[in-house]
């Protein structure tokens, strides 16, 4: 695979530079580390910091913004940021009302954010953590807190950002974010691999007639290899997993996110969406809002995920709140 890049070792530096060049009015770089912060945050409010390995663009940098995260701490491609980076971003955002870390639940991220929060506490910055664990393919329902975080990051950051924007306390913002995570369920499917910048081989091999059902966003294997199927059949099988797991029933309200993984086109996502809506309608579930986009990608990986956020009145308020970044709008 060809990649449009310069030296492998400069990928992150240049990616962040390109982001700041484009959106300098609203974002600034955190000196010396791979972090960015949103410029226009209220000093009296809680800050949300997100982050993780790079390579999933527009996550995580694109989810700093109005009503979203205050900053993003980035690692290299698919590698959690180091504690230093997280700490510097923590010091760069408004932190006197405390800081909530939100990131996908991966060992590397947990270790580094935990270490950073020890360091932050030593500098008298109060921190909390919510680990996003929405991927139903990655652990059983009983072990929800062990699940991987995939596109569900979007809903958790959205809810937390809105709660912070509303002026809630650190504990309350944390509670809302945890509740959003509790109510968020996703499942993905991969049809072709992506390639990390600088690597020659794709992340995995997938025969032309097969797909990986339940694939993770770093190419982690899923539940099973399956024969390639139609969009309708895929949607059906994915919804079966999701609805059972999310305990969604007739009369419930939900927000749907169809998230492309990289090279899967908007056309394909819309085709899947058509079937998802048909099924949810048939089951009596009210789709409160739908977003069809590619927020959480894995380079040029082919495939997509479906995420369902089950709403209650409280979450609806925070979901509805305005939010803006160059890559997310509400």
């Amino acid at each position, binding site marked *: 695979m060809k990649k449009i890049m310069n030296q492998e070792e400069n990928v992150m530096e240049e990616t962040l530079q390109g982001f700041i060049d484009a959106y300098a009015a609203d974002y600034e770089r955190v000196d010396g580390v791979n972090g960015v912060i949103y410029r226009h945050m209220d000093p009296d409010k809680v800050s949300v910091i997100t982050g993780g390995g790079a390579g999933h663009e527009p996550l995580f940098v694109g989810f700093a913004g109005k009503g979203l995260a205050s900053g993003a701490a980035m690692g290299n491609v698919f590698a959690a*940021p180091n504690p230093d980076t997280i700490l510097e971003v923590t010091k760069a955002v408004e932190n006197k009302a405390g800081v909530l870390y939100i990131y996908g639940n991966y060992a590397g991220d947990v270790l580094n954010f935990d270490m950073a929060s020890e360091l932050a506490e030593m500098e008298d910055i109060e921190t909390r953590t919510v680990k996003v664990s929405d991927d139903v393919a990655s652990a059983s329902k009983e072990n929800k807190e062990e699940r991987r975080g995939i596109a569900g990051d979007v809903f958790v950051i959205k809810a937390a950002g809105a709660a912070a924007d509303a002026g809630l306390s650190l504990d309350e913002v944390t509670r809302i974010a945890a509740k959003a995570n509790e109510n968020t369920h996703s499942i993905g499917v991969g049809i072709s691999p992506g390639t990390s910048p600088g690597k020659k081989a794709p992340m995995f091999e997938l025969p032309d007639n097969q797909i990986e059902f339940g694939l993770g966003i770093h190419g982690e294997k899923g539940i099973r290899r399956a024969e390639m199927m139609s969009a309708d059949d895929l949607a059906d099988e994915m919804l079966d997993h999701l609805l059972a797991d999310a305990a969604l029933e007739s009369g419930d309200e939900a927000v749907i996110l169809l998230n492309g993984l990289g090279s899967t086109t908007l056309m394909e996502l819309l085709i899947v969406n058509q079937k998802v809506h048909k099924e949810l309608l048939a089951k009596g579930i009210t789709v409160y809002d739908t977003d069809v986009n590619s927020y959480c990608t894995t380079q040029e990986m082919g495939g997509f995920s479906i995420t369902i956020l089950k709403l209650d009145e409280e979450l609806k308020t925070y979901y509805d709140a305005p939010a803006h970044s160059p890559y997310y709008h509400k």
Partner: protein
Amino acid sequence: MEKQTMNHLSVDDVKQMLLYVGETITASKDYLGQIDAEIGDGDHGTGMATGAEAFMKKLRESEFETINDVFKTTGMEMMKSMGGASGIIFGTMFSDGVKQLESKSSIDHTGLADIFRGSLDSVKKRGKADVGDKTMIDALDPAVQTLESDASKEWTLTEVLKHAEEAAWNGVEETKQITAKHGRAKTLGERTKGYQDAGATSVWLIFKSMREWVEQHEG
């Protein structure tokens, strides 16, 4: 001239030995990456190599008074530069082993056993993993156990390290039988069986290259 065996490491010996460890890691970048790719996300080689480049640079440009400083600096540089699970885990392994120990300017194999015991305890505490979780601990734990049980023996450093290296390798082999519980791979369940753990492989490489360096600098 009779072959001279090495029983003690000076501050500079430790520095040179860790530089050699760094070279080995850098040279094994693709190998480690491929192992991680089988059941993880394929970045372990890049991560370890980044850490190695960073600590080698720092070691080369610094003067050290104590062995503790050499280990601590090595670990801190890894922690700062690497990111990923292994940044913390291997950073902790190098930096925290000497944390509870008094400053030393020379160590023998007993000293080495003390350091790596500290490493093992710190890594377990930090990562909340234990033997059988299919992590680098599956290689580090048996290596430390041999170091400790060999501490009372009249062996050369090479012999002791060779023994630890073998124990680490057996640990790597054992990870193939285990279903992963930690790291990104943990969620693959049964499908991780048959594949060795990348981090455990790095531990083995570290012991192997320490042994090689000592062996090469004997006599």
